[in-house]
Each structure stands twice: as C-alpha cells, then as structure tokens.
C-alpha cells in the first residue's frame, strides 16, 4: 500500500530524513518509534504533503501511484489520513461543517453522491458515541478551546468518519489521560481491517499496550535503524533508545 524508498527530505537548510525506506501492506499496523528529533513527525508530514518539507531524493508510492506528485487534498481523497500531533484550532469554522465538507470532498472524488445533512448527522453521532464524545462538539469551532485530549479525540473522530485506507497518527497518545487513551485506541482498533493500514508514530510504548502493532521500527537521525515485532517496543521501553543506536553504529 505504501512504499517509501530512500526518502530524503529537508526543511530549510536542515536535512531531516536521510534515506528512509519503509513498506506498509494492507491490513498491517506499524509503529514508528524514536527519540525526539529523529524525524518521526517529518515522515508523517511528508507523506501528508506539507509544503514546507522538500523531498530531495527517493520515492513514495501509495497504491502504486507516485504520492509526491499529488496535492495534500488529493492524497486525503485517495485515502490517506494524518492525525496531527498538534491539531489546529480554527475558530469560526464549525466542526460539523468541516467533517461534512471533508467527507463530501472524498465521496465526490470517488464518484459518489454527497451525503445529506440528515445522514451525516446520524453517522457523526454514531461515531462520536463510540469515542465517548458529546454530540455538542459538532457545533463548536474546530478544536476551539478543546483540551489536549478532546483535540486528539476529535482527530480520531475525523478519521472514523473519513475511513481512510492509510492512517498515520502522529503522537496521538501524547498528553492523554488513561480514559482518553483508551477511547483513542478503541477508535483506531475499530478501523483495523484487512483493507486498511495504520502507522503509529509514537515516543512511548504506552499506546502499544492498547493497539498491538505488527511491526515496530526505530527511527534515528532520519533513518530506520532497527525493525522488529511488538517485543521490540517493550525492549525499547526497558533499555531506552541508546541501546539500539549503539547497536546500529557498532
């Protein structure tokens, strides 16, 4: 589904990704771990199409097509979803409006009719119930005045409504209390299916207690230096990142 080969990317003058390769197949859940500054968020932003990151080398293919040729909105409509580490507050734009516009942009792209207001409300309320979100969040400004946990739940709500084929969740677990963490994990697990893939970008192992990954990768200085199964995450939790870095350098 997602094939990243020798990806190099920089922002301004600093090179952040330095030859990263990753292959994600449908049905898989991958966890990308690594210390701060290793390039985890950059990877997520590059795949979503953030214009500030320049790709200098390598390729990214999604379902066989060159992803780097596509605008961010085209990537989204093709089925990529990025859960932001810092969801943006947009006062004055109501949450329901954005959700509906996003869903309809995707439906239109796939030749489907736009969803009507009634159907949409039903769908949104259904998804909110499973995430333990109060329906009144629909009528509030996008993330406006939301707590950290509410913002992350809102990202998961958007994901649940859009049903992407590839979800990349950037530090979705950071700043969450245990209830919010469970709700987020439940939302992610509900999306797991043989047709979909999920990439979890995370600093801590904690999230992986609730969402069991098929693969764990360690990112350091813009490259994947070690890959393994879920036991690697536990090992990292116990020994820290230095151990992998030393092993990789040695």
């Amino acid at each position, binding site marked *: 589904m997602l094939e990243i080969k020798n990806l190099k990317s920089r922002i301004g003058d600093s090179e952040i990704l330095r030859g990263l390769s990753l292959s994600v197949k449908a049905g898989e859940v991958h966890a990308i771990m690594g210390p701060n500054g290793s390039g985890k968020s950059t990877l997520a932003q590059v795949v*979503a*199409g*953030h*214009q*500030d990151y320049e790709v200098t080398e390598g390729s990214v293919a999604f379902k066989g097509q060159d992803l780097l040729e596509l*605008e*961010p*909105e085209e*990537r*989204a*409509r093709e089925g990529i*979803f*990025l859960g*932001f580490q810092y*969801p*943006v507050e*947009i*006062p*004055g*734009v109501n949450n329901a*409006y*954005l959700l509906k*516009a*996003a869903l309809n*942009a*995707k439906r239109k*792209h796939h030749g489907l009719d736009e969803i009507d207001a009634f159907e949409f409300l039903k769908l949104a309320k259904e998804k909110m119930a499973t995430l333990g979100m109060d329906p009144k969040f629909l009528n509030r*400004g996008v993330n406006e005045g939301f707590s950290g946990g509410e913002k992350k739940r809102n990202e998961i709500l*958007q994901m649940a409504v*859009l049903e992407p084929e590839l979800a990349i969740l950037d530090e979705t677990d950071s700043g969450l209390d245990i209830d919010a963490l469970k709700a987020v994990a439940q939302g992610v697990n509900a999306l797991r299916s043989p047709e979909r893939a999920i990439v979890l970008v995370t600093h801590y192992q904690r999230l992986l207690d609730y969402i069991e990954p098929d693969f764990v990768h360690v990112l350091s200085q813009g490259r994947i230096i070690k890959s393994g199964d879920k036991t690697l995450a536990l090992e990292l939790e116990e020994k820290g990142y230095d151990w992998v870095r030393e092993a990789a350098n040695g």
Partner: protein
Amino acid sequence: MTRLPTNKLREIVGRLPTTRDEDWKYTDLSRARDITSRWLDAGGETDAAEMAEDIARITASIDATWFVIANGELQLPDDAPGVSATHLDEAPAADSALAELNTALLLDGLRLRIDGTPGKPVGLLLIDGAASAATSQAYVDVVFAAQSSGEVIEYHASLGATDHYANTMVGITVGDNAAASHVRIQNRDLNHVQTGRTRVAVGRDAKFSSAGFDLGGGLIRNDIVIDIAQPGAEISFDGLYLAGEGQHIDNHSRVDHRVGPATSSQEYRGILNGKCRCVWNGKAIVHEGADGTDADQANHNLLLSEKAEIDAKPELEIYTDDVKCSHGTTVGQLDETSLFYLRSRGLDKQQATQVLTHAFAAGLVSRVPVEPAREAIGALVEARLATLIQSNEYFS
C-alpha cells in the same frame, strides 16, 4: 428646493477634497468629479431607470419598514408603524464641500423620528443607476427619542453598471437613555463611486451599536463621526470590507469623547484579494475633562494577494488623564498551518481559503446588531467571499 445654477455647482465640485487633504490622502475623488461634470454637461438630469424589481427583491430580503431613495428621489412607505416621517423642509447646514454638494443637489430629504419601540427596523434603501452617468444625493436624519429603542438599516445598492456618483449624508440622534442599532450594507457596482457620511450624536446613558459591510463599489469612502457630549454613552461599531480587483474602500471613523464616563469600541476587518486598496483610519479624540473614557480600536486585515494594499492608521488624541485607550492593527496572510490542516482533510485550496475567510468574517456577522438583517448579511458576505476568492490568479 431650487437648484443652484450650473456654474455654482461646478464651483462646488471643484472644491471637493483632493489627495492633498490629509483626511483624503489615499482616496482620490477625481472619478466623482468626472462623473458629476459629465452629468452636468449633459444637462444634469437623471433618466428614470426601471428599478421596481430590484427594489422589491432587496426590500423583501429583510423584514423592515422601507423608505426608498432611488436616484435621490424619496418614496415613502404606505404605513410606517412607530415611525413618524416628514420631508425635510429646509436645506441642512453644510460644513464641507461634500455637504454643500449634497445640499445643492438634494431633491428631497427625509426626517424620521422613532418613539418607543417600533416592531420592525427602519430600512433606508439608497439605490442608484441611470441610463447615463449621473450623480445623486441623499440626506436622512433619524431621531431616536429619549427612552426609545430601535434599529435602522442603511442599504446602498446600484442598478446596472453605468458610472454613478452617490453622495449620502445620514444623521442619527440617540436621545437620553435610548438604544439605537444601525447597520450599513454597501453592495454597489464597480462603476459606482460613493461618499457616505454617518453622523451620530448620543445623549446621556444612550447606547449606539453599528456594523458596516462593504461588499461592492468601485471607489467607496465612508465616514462615521460620533459625538459624545453627555456622560454614560456606550458606543460600539464594526466594519467589514471585502475588496477585490479594482476596488478602493476607505473607512474613516472619528469619535469625539467630550465628557466621561463613556465607552467606545470599534473593530474593522478586511479581506483583500487582487489589485485593490483599502484604508482604515480610526480616530478617537478624548477631550480635556472627559475622565472615565474607555476607547478601543481594532483593525485586522487578511491580504490574499501581493497586489492588495491596506493603509491602516489608528489615531488616538488624549487630552485628559483618567482614560483607558487601546488599539491594535494586524495585516497578514492566511495561516499556512490552518490551510494545510484543511487540505489534509480533503478540501482543495480554494475551499480551504473560503472556509478560513468565512471564519475571519464570521465573528462580525454573528454580532450584527440589527437581528432581522443578520441572515441576509450573512448570505451577502458568503456570496461576496465566494466571488472574491475565485476572482484572480491566486489559485491558478
């Protein structure tokens, strides 16, 4: 009222403000002079245009007691509950060349008095447009009696796209303990030039709230002049200007705090795209002895094009000690982070821009002080934003 001889009129036109006047530095009235001269050359008559349809459409969009001034000619409604309307019986005193021009060419002036609380807002529809270039004047005085509470809508519109210059004077007097709300909607054609002055005098413990929406117009200059000569006044006014290719919109405000305590606050917002220019000049003068004055000014601008220009100038003149004054001006582009967030959800750049510009304007629309006009204003703003962001190279 008998009209002055043409040579006298030309002499007044020659004295209209120029960019050499500090207050008119950015706004060149050459077009107004040119249109008026052509109109005087042609005999100074205005061919009656068929406006009934447009008048019906606009007056149906907001539930109000409508007074229509079409090319300067007044049409009184059959029934105006809670409002007494009279024709102006003598020429108003003129204190500037624009006021002189208004007085000299005025066909009919209107004086309204509101007592108690009328059930509906008073609507003033100023609609202009003729077969050839023309100039028209309007003069309306609205008096809110002491203890009264009411609303007034000033709606400026045009018929057709012929060159036109409209010069409007509106006076609003808010009596002691009265509360007046006012909105001004300006949705003229690109070939229209307008100079419009709204002069407000407030009594003791009076409240005045206003919001202006400039959506169209080629060359527009609005002056809102507010005089606080009695203590206890609460004044607030907003302005939203949406300017695209070829538009020039100038908003000047002046608040004279002559006594305290009193509060005045103003917030203007602008969205500019394409080659256009907007001006915001907010002046607050706190006179000697006006202790307990609280005056706030804010002006925020969103520039979507490198060719758009805004000249923003807050001016505070304070001649007393016990005051609280603040001002803030921002000029910026759309927030890239928000834009990317929306695009990452599947909205294209144009949709995302529309959503963000809508959000920028929404705060002022949601607090339109004349409730019955709010929905119509919201729809006009949406429609203008849609054309504004489609209108140039920004998305190509």
